[in-house]
C-alpha cells in the first residue's frame, strides 16, 4: 500500500464508527463483534452473501435499530444521505418527482433543479413518482440523498436491477461526488467479485468481518473466494482472463480478492483453514 495514502487516511476525520457490534435475531447470531470506521473522502464497499448481516449492520449504522451490544459513534451533526434499495410509494398519494424531492429536509427549489440537472433527470420533475422506471427511480432516490448535503452517503445495492450502462454511469459519478463534496461513501452489494474500482476498502461480511482490503488485485489467488462455495474458481485455477477483459472494457469495475483464513460450515460454525 502506498504509504502517503496511509498518512492521508489517518488525518481524515472519522464520520462514523462502530465497535463490538453484536446482533441476534431469535437464536441466530447475525452480527458478531463488528468493528468498523468510515472516514471523510473514503469509499467503502460492504459485500457479503444473502443473510450475511449486511442489512442489519446498515440499519444499525443508520440508527434505525439498536445493536444488542456494542456502540456506534457518529461525528457531531453528521448528515447521512441514504439511498434505499427500493421504495414503493402508494398510488393513493399524488406525488411528483419534484414534490418528492422537496420532502428532503432543507430542500429548496433551486437545489432540487440543480441535482435533477446534474443527474440528467430534469424531464422527470413533474412525473408522478409511481410511473418511473427502476433506473429513473434510482436516480431520483440518489438525488434525494444528495439534497440533504450529506457528509456520508449510503447506497444500498445501488446497481441491482440497473443495466450495465447505468451501472457504469453511477460508478463514474460516485468518485466525482466524493471529490466534490468530500463525503464518505458506503456501498452495499451482494456481488462478491466485482466492486467499484474507486473503492478504497472492501469489507467482506458474513456475520463477522471475514476479510477486508483494497480491491485492485485483478490477478487471482488460488484461495480466491473459497468461502462462498464457488468451487469453479478452484477448478479453473487461473480465472483472470475474463476478469482482465472486464477491467479493460469497464474501468469503473474492479475485482476483489478474498483472503480468508476460515470457512463457514453449513451449521453456522466457523472453522479455521490455516495450514
Amino acid at each position, binding site marked *: 500500500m502506498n504509504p502517503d495514502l496511509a498518512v492521508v487516511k489517518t488525518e481524515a476525520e472519522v464520520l462514523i464508527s462502530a465497535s463490538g457490534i453484536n446482533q441476534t435475531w431469535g437464536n441466530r447470531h447475525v452480527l458478531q463483534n463488528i468493528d468498523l470506521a468510515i472516514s471523510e473522502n473514503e469509499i467503502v464497499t460492504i459485500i457479503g452473501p444473502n443473510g450475511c448481516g449486511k442489512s442489519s449492520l446498515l440499519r444499525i449504522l*443508520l*440508527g*434505525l435499530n439498536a445493536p444488542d451490544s456494542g456502540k456506534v459513534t457518529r461525528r457531531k451533526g453528521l*448528515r*447521512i444521505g*441514504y439511498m*434505499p434499495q427500493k*421504495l414503493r*410509494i*402508494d398510488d*393513493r*398519494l*399524488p*406525488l*411528483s418527482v419534484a*414534490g*418528492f424531492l*422537496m*420532502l*428532503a*429536509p432543507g430542500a429548496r427549489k433551486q437545489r432540487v433543479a440543480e441535482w435533477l440537472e446534474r443527474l440528467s433527470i430534469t424531464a422527470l420533475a413533474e412525473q*408522478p413518482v409511481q410511473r418511473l422506471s427502476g433506473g429513473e427511480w434510482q436516480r431520483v432516490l440518489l438525488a*434525494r440523498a444528495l439534497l*440533504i448535503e450529506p457528509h456520508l452517503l449510503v447506497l444500498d445495492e445501488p446497481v441491482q436491477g440497473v443495466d450495465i450502462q447505468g451501472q457504469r454511469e453511477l460508478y463514474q459519478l460516485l468518485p466525482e461526488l466524493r471529490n466534490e463534496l468530500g463525503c464518505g461513501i458506503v456501498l452495499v452489494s451482494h456481488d462478491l467479485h466485482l466492486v467499484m474500482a474507486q473503492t478504497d476498502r472492501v469489507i467482506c461480511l458474513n456475520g463477522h468481518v471475514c476479510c477486508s482490503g483494497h480491491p485492485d488485485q485483478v490477478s487471482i489467488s488460488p484461495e480466491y473466494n473459497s468461502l462462498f462455495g464457488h468451487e469453479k474458481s478452484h477448478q479453473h485455477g487461473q480465472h483472470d482472463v475474463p476478469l482482465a477483459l472486464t477491467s479493460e472494457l469497464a474501468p469503473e469495475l474492479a475485482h476483489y480478492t478474498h483472503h480468508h483464513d476460515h470457512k463457514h460450515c453449513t451449521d453456522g460454525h466457523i472453522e479455521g483453514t490455516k495450514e
Partner: protein
Amino acid sequence: MISWWLLPLFAGLGVAGIAGPLGSLVVWRRLAFFGDTLAHGALLGITLGILFDLHLTLALILSCSMLALILLKLDKYTGIASDTLLGILSHSSLAIGLVVLSFFDNVRIDLMAYLFGDLLAVNQTDLLWILIGGLLVVGLLIWQWRGLLASTVSEELAAIDGYPVRRLKAMLVLLLALVVAISMKIVGVLLISALLIIPAAAARPLAKSPEKMAILASVIGMISVCAGMAFSFIWDTPTGPSIVVSAAGLFVMSQVFNSVRK
C-alpha cells in the same frame, strides 16, 4: 338573530374542513380502521363521562386520546397483527360502553344520537369546540406538513433524514382522536371515518399534489355537508347519513370523471 340552521351548517362545514387534510393523511397512511376504532371506543368515553359527570365533549376527547396512545403502544410491543388488534379493541370497547351504560337505570341517553349523530342539536358551545379544535388541528398539520408527508412516504427514510417520526405519528394519532371526538355529534360514531375517508378518496383522481388533494378533500367534504343538509331538510332524512350519502355520490362522480378522462 341567528337562523336555527346556521349553527349546524357552520359546524358541519368546520368538521368537513378539518377532515380534508387529516382524512388525506388517514388514507395515505392506511389509518382508516384506526379512526373506526377510536370512534367505537368513544362510546366508552361517553359512559365514563356520565359516570364521572364530566363535560361530554371533554370526556370524549380524553377517552379517544387515551385509546389512541394505547393503540400506538400496543402496535409496537405486541406480536398481534395490527388489524386484529384494532378489531378486538374496536368492538370490545363499543360493547363495554353499551354494557356499562345499561347499568344506569336513571340515565337515559339517546344512543341513536351518538351512533348516527345529530347535527341539528349542535349548540354554540359545540361550535366553539369545533372552531378551536379545528384551528389547532389545521395549524399543527400545516406546521408539521413536510415531516408528516416525508414519514408517510417512508418512515425509515424520514427517520434517517432526522424527522421526529415517532413524535409525528403520535401527534397525528392524537389529532385524529380530537377530530373524532368533536365530530361525533355531527355524523356519529358509525360514520366518522366515512367523513374522513370518502372526500379524500374522491379528491385523489383530481389532484396532482398532496396539498391539492388535502384542500380538495375539504372542499368536497363541505359540498357534501351542504348537499346532505339540503337533502335532509327537503326529504326529512337523518342529517348525518345524508351527508355521507352525498359524499359517496361525489366519490362516484369523481371516479366516473377519472375513467372518462382516461
